[in-house]
C-alpha cells in the first residue's frame, strides 16, 4: 500500500507524456485514501453543450471517452476548452478544465482527479496548526497561494511565484471592480503559503485552508520535456474554495493549460488564468457572504451576494458553463433561503 501511495505521489511530480487526440481518460480517486472511486458521475461540456447521457466511472475509478465520438459536432470540436465535472454523493464536486486544441488534447497527471469527502476532514497536527496560526486571515478574504512547483530547468521558481502573486492580486481585484463587486465584497488579499502541500485541492489542503480561515487555497505545477525546449509546458492549477454555506458545496477546480514557454512570464500566465480565477474568487466570496448572511439572518446580504453572482454570470462565455452551473446552484440555494 505504501509503495502504491508513493507511486501515486510520484505521478504528480513526473512529467508524463500524454496521449494526444480527442480521447479523455483518467482515474478518480478518494483524496485521502487514494482508493479508486466507482460510480462517479461525469458530465462533459464543450462549447456550452453537454454530453448526454452522462458517464460514470467503473469499479476501478477509470473513465475514458472520445469527444469526437460523442454528440459534439465538428464545429464544437474546434473549441479549445473542455469542462469535465465530477460528482458523487458524499464528496465535494470537482471540475477539470482542459485547454488546448481538441485534436492535440493532453491529459496531465494521467487524468487523475482526487475527490474529497465532505465529512471528516483531515486533522492537522498541533505543530502544523501552530505554524499556521500567525497566518490566519481575520477577514476570511485571503487567497493563499502555495508556490507552484516547477519541474523544468531554466525557470526561476522564486521569481515566478512572486510575480504570479502580484499579477494575481491586480487581476482579481480589477475583476471584482469590473463587475462592481469590489466595494462591497472588499479587497481580496493574496498571501504566499510556504508549506509543502502535495496539492491544494486535497484533504490536507482543505484542512490547511480551514485552519487559515482562507477564502481559497491555490496551487499548481509546471512541467515539460526538458529535452525539447521548444515543446510547450504543461501548467496545472488548482483552486480550492474553502468556505461552505449550508448544503451548497463549492467545487475544487483543476485547470490544465499548455503554454508556450515565452508565455510563462507571469503576465502571460495571469492572462490565461485571470478570468477563471476572478470568477472563482467571486464564487468563493459569495459563498462566504451567504454563510455569514445565514448566520446573522441578514436578507440584505443574501440579496447582495445574489446580485454579485448575477454580475459574474453576465461575464461568462460559452466555455464557462461549469462556473455558471456552480453560480446557478448557489443562486438556487440563496433563493431557497430567501423564501424562508
Amino acid at each position, binding site marked *: 500500500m505504501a509503495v502504491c501511495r508513493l507511486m501515486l505521489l510520484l505521478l504528480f511530480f513526473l512529467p508524463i507524456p500524454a496521449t494526444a487526440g480527442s480521447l479523455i481518460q483518467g482515474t478518480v480517486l478518494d483524496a485521502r485514501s487514494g482508493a479508486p472511486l466507482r460510480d462517479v458521475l461525469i458530465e462533459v461540456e464543450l462549447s456550452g453543450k453537454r454530453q448526454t447521457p452522462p458517464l460514470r466511472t467503473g469499479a476501478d475509478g477509470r473513465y475514458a471517452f472520445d469527444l469526437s465520438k460523442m454528440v459534439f459536432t465538428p464545429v464544437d470540436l474546434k473549441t479549445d476548452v473542455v469542462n469535465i465535472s465530477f460528482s458523487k454523493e458524499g464528496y465535494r464536486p470537482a471540475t477539470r478544465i482542459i485547454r488546448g486544441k481538441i485534436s492535440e488534447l493532453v491529459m496531465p497527471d494521467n487524468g487523475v482527479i482526487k475527490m474529497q469527502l465532505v465529512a471528516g476532514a483531515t486533522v492537522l497536527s498541533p505543530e502544523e496548526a501552530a505554524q499556521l496560526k500567525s497566518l490566519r486571515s481575520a477577514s476570511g478574504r485571503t487567497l493563499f497561494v502555495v508556490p507552484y512547483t516547477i519541474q523544468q530547468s531554466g525557470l526561476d521558481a522564486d521569481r515566478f511565484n512572486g510575480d504570479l502573486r502580484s499579477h494575481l492580486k491586480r487581476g482579481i481585484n480589477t475583476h471584482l471592480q469590473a463587475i462592481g463587486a469590489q466595494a462591497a465584497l472588499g479587497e481580496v488579499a493574496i498571501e504566499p503559503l510556504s508549506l509543502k502541500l502535495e496539492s491544494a485541492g486535497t484533504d490536507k489542503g482543505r484542512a490547511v485552508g480551514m485552519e487559515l480561515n482562507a477564502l481559497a487555497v491555490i496551487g499548481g505545477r509546471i512541467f515539460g520535456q526538458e529535452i525539447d525546449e521548444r515543446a510547450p509546458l504543461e501548467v496545472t492549477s488548482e483552486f480550492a474554495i474553502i468556505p461552505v454555506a449550508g448544503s451548497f458545496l463549492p467545487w475544487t477546480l483543476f485547470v490544465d493549460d499548455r503554454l508556450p514557454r515565452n508565455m510563462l512570464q507571469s503576465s*502571460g500566465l495571469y492572462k490565461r488564468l485571470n478570468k477563471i480565477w476572478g470568477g472563482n474568487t467571486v464564487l468563493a466570496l459569495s459563498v462566504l457572504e451567504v454563510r455569514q448572511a445565514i448566520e446573522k439572518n441578514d436578507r440584505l446580504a443574501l440579496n447582495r451576494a445574489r446580485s454579485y453572482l*448575477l454580475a459574474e454570470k453576465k*461575464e*461568462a462565455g460559452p466555455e464557462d458553463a461549469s462556473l455558471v452551473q456552480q453560480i446557478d446552484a448557489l443562486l438556487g440555494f440563496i433563493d431557497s433561503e430567501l423564501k424562508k
Partner: protein
Amino acid sequence: MSMRMRLMACVMLLSSCMILPVWAGDIIAFQHETPRGPQVLQNVGLKSVIAEFLDPADTGIGKSLGYLLWRETLTAISDQAGAGVILARAPEGQRLTDILAQDYHRAAVAIALYQKSRMALWGAASEEDAKVHLNTYLTLIDDPANTGFSLVLKSPSGSIEAQIPRTRFNFELVTTTRKALFERNLVTRRSVKLYKAPSTRAEVVGAVAAGAVLNAVDMDGGWFVVKLDAHRRAYIENSQVDVPPSIVDVDRGQFELKERPARRAATVLKTVLDGRYPVQNMRYVDTEGLWYQIGVGEKKGWVWAGSVRPRFSLPAVHFLAGIYRFYDRRYKDAAREFSQFLTAPDIEESNVNRAAALQLLGASRLMGRHISQIDPSAYAPFAEAVALTPYDPAAYQLRAIGHLVASRNPGEAVADVAKALSLDKDNRGAKKLVSDMLAISKRNTPLSSITRLPEQRQELEALQMQYRIQLDIQ
C-alpha cells in the same frame, strides 16, 4: 515692413493654421488620496484622463506609454470640438507605484471625477526579453444627468430602450515591442530644437522647422528619440510634435492620392487601395479637416483621414475614441473606431469586451437613423454579442431592439426579452422593455405598425403576468 515680408508673415500664419490640429490636452500631476490642485480644461465638455502606466520595474516605459496614448487619443479626436484629454503623470522625482500602492484604479477614477472627466484610462506595463506586456483598463464615469449608453427607439407615440450597461473594461494583455509602439513618423508643430539628451538643459544638436517630419525610433519618458542619420540620434519633447498613427487600414476602394492635403489639390496617384499603409505625415487643414500622407509602394500622397481607418498602438485607444464619438453622436465615426477595436490584429480580446464593443458598434449603426433606413442585417452585432455572453440579460434586450428595427421580427424580439427575464427575473431593464413593448402593442400608431408588436400582444401579456410586471403609463 516690406510687401514681401508681409506676404511671408501671412503665409507663415496660414501655415501654422494648416498644421495645428484642434487639440485640448493638458497634464496634471497624479495625486494619491484626495485629488487637489487646479481643474484643467474647464471649458471642455467631454474629457478623459489617461494616467501614466504602472511600471514596477521602473524602466520608464510606463511614463512613455502614458504620453504616447495621450497623444494618440488627441490625434484620434482632433476633429471633435469640445473634446479633450488630460494626462495624469507622477510628479517629478516620484514613482507612480510608490504613490498608487494598491489603489491604482480607485486613484485614477478619483482624479477623473475631480477633473470632471467621463472616462479614465490606465494600465500597467512590464518589459521582459525585448517584449513589452501591457494591461490596460478603462472606466466610464457614471453621470447622473446621463443615462449612459442606451439604444433608444423613439417616436411621438412611444419609445423602447435597452441599455449597454458595461462601464468598466479590463482589456486583454497586449504583448508588443518598443519598436512597434514608438517607431513612427512625427510632425513638428512649430520650429523646435533637438537635444542630445531628454532635457531642455542638454546640448542642442539641431533645429527643425514647423511641419517637418521626423523618424522616431524610441521614447524616453515624455521625449521621443528621433533618428538624425544612420548613426546619430536626438531627443524632442512630445508636446512639440503631432503623433500620427503609424499605419492606416483601408477598405478596398478607388482612391485619389493628392499632392497636398486638400480636396482640390492635384492627384499624384489614382489607384485601388486595400489593406494597410504606413503614415508618412499628418496635417490638420482648416475647413478640410485631418489628412494623412500615406506611402503606396514607392509613391506617397495625401488622403482625407475620414476615408481611412487609423490603427493606433493599443486597441484601447480605439475603444476610447469610439466612446468620445458616441457621446458626441458621431455614430459613423464611433462605428469605425469600434470596428478597429474588434479587428485589432494578434489580440484575443475577452468575450466580455468583444460583446460590449459589438453592442456599441451595433448601436452606432442604428442610432440617428430613421427606422426605414436601417439595413436588416444591422442586428448582427447584437446577435454576435449574445453568442459571446449568453448569460447576460442585457445582451438579449439589445438584440430584441435589433430584431424590432432591423430584422423586423417581433417574435424573436419577444423571445429575447423572455430569455432575459429567465436569466434574471428581477431585471429592471427587461421588465421595462416588456412594459414598453406591451404599451406599443396595444396602440394603433405608426410605431406599432412598423414594429408589428400588436402581433405579439398575447405573448407580451403572458410575460407581464408571469413576472408580475407593472405597466408604465405612457
